[in-house]
């Protein structure tokens, strides 16, 4: 099984350990992983700002770099959703279409394709799970509080296999953290307030760590935690599953 690893641009620059953990996890559970070094970004920062046309270069790079793989895996619900919904190529639309159907966010790849049922991981801490919106409501990684439907959660299913972990309950199970891409600077006041409120929910329920499937949400929450000199740390789910 040839898996192409797509690493979000900001994870590549700021959180290399998340990418390493992702690669190691995939290899540990049976994937043959390759990381095309000419990769860049999913194009979402431009497209979400209304400039879909400016993301065409990213689209072409992505299509060129990843068309030969059986699967593409990305440790971000948001980038994965963007590619699934919006990847188009002027040069090779057939490849773009095939990538749209074979890209997976990391946790859904572990549960649905690699069918991981046991993990060799230990993380003896109190952990709060932040449900990132694009992973949850977009990719449907877990059930959404708005719907009248049976509960499930792919990320939690995996976290529950980690030895020693204590998952805390939150007052608001799936409220947005306020990152929102360029929203985080364009609407700074509301973005920060949303982040502060998410942090408070985790604090009030005794979290030592906040985890999630998207480092962008966690980077925003981390920025707020560090500014208030909190002891709570953020950790991408890949690092916990690989610990």
């Amino acid at each position, binding site marked *: 099984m040839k898996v192409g690893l797509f690493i979000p641009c900001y994870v590549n620059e*700021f959180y290399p350990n998340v990418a390493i953990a992702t690669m190691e996890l995939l290899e540990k559970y049976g994937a043959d992983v390759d990381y095309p070094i*000419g990769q860049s970004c999913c194009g979402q920062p431009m497209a979400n700002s*209304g400039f879909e046309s400016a993301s065409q270069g990213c689209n072409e790079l992505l299509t060129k770099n990843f068309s030969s793989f059986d699967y593409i895996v990305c440790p971000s619900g948001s980038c994965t959703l963007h590619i699934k919904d919006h990847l188009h190529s002027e040069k090779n639309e057939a490849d773009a279409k095939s990538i749209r159907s074979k890209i997976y966010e990391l946790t859904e790849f572990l549960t649905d394709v690699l069918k991981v049922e046991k993990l060799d991981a230990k993380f003896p801490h109190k952990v709060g799970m932040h449900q990132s919106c694009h992973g949850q409501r977009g990719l449907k990684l877990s059930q959404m509080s708005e719907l009248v439907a049976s509960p499930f959660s792919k990320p939690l299913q995996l976290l529950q296999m980690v030895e020693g972990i204590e998952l805390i309950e939150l007052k608001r199970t799936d409220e947005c953290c306020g990152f929102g891409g360029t929203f985080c600077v364009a*609407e700074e*006041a509301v973005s920060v307030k949303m982040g502060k409120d998410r942090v408070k929910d985790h604090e009030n329920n005794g979290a030592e760590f906040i985890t999630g499937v998207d480092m962008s949400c966690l980077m925003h929450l981390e920025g707020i935690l560090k500014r208030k000199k909190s002891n709570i740390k953020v950790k991408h789910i890949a690092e916990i599953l690989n610990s």
Partner: protein
Amino acid sequence: MESKGKDHAQLSDIFNKDEPRVDWHDETLWFVRQKRDKAVKAIPEWEQLRETASQIKNNVLSNLDGYLIQFEEEAKKNGAIIHWAADAKEHNEIVYSILAKHSVTKIVKSKSMLTEECHLNPYLKEKGINVVDTDLGERIVQLADETPSHIVLPCIHWKKEEIGELFHHHLGTPKGNADPQFLTNAARLHLRQKFLTRKIAITGVNFAVAETGEFVVCTNEGNADMGAHLADVHIACMGIEKIIPHRKHLGIFLRLLARSATGQPITTYSSHFRSPRKNQELHIVLVDNGRSVQLGRKDFRNSLKCIRCAACFNTCPVYRRSGGHSYHTAIAGPIGSILAPNLDMKQYADLPFASTLCGSCSNVCPVKIDIHDQLYKWRQVLVKEGHVGIAKKAGINGMAFMLNHPGLLKVVGKTGRWAMRNIPFVVNNKMNPWYKQRDLPEAPTQSFNEWYVKNKSKKNEQ
């Protein structure tokens, strides 16, 4: 109003200066969202109801012309007088002409977001007409010389102590009395006198039934009924999208509406109006005001399914923390942000960006409007139509150039990380909106890409 000329980001920045008030506003609306959750989770077929309503509305939107003509014919048979208004101006003029015909200068009006959208109150005020809004929340904002901040809960941004002050000033209630029951009773006595003396009543319309020519008005206060029943002339104003084909469809929509809005099983009053009583006139004003244009926009026509429940307001984490007035339009919140650009792209170009695209709005919508997807699509339209500033455009193009060139991205990334470690003041300053209330992430010496190249070459050597 202070909202003049300011965009959503600026107005919500002002709103956020008083953090305890933001917390109170957020908690109040979250409470309504929770009531909604509780009510809908008691209905096992809830998702099926939403889907059915959405499909009925699909049918309505595809056959709107036919249903409107059918409604007109049936309503005329019932004795109603039908008016067609192409836009807000025509709507206001029609209403005024009816008042002028009867030489009436004082009227009552129950809740109608359409009349807010058409700015009927200021128009009539200018003509010397005294309008009393009879919905309690609307009366409160009217006394305060404001507009509603929420389409179902117009004065949700007011605290009871502030309402006590307002009533003390306008209705002569004792100073310092903020007891909701007492204040409601004071408003009731004040409004009763208006109901008894005003000859013309305006109401909104929640649903207009093509099959029978009747319409349904939903209220919790009975104020629409009180107004319409005591007046000689009843004017009902409705957007043309309010049509439903059959009376039996009310069994779907009435179950969805109040549960989505407030978590009630049904509104206290769901009143059917069909024929004027003897010597009464019943006017129905059917208003387009941009709706047929929206109907022609393939990506946005579904927004016309909206039944104005405001569930998307209550669930929206941005709305709860920015307040209705930050949207500077009659219909705020996520739905307002996809409706307003249709009316005026330039004026409302900021609204589709006032969202994190979290998608909660689409999930609570009782008629399954793809609200967050439409917000994304409006962003594309607004950029194409040139309604996004030059600075933003330059920034995005710069970012795109870098991201489209992986070699350059690596150099910029490496340089940027070096700068963050060695000369942090270039990014950690007040020019950077990220840094204002958040720290930047630590900049590692090595990117994943650099690590991988080294690691992989090692692996290859072995």
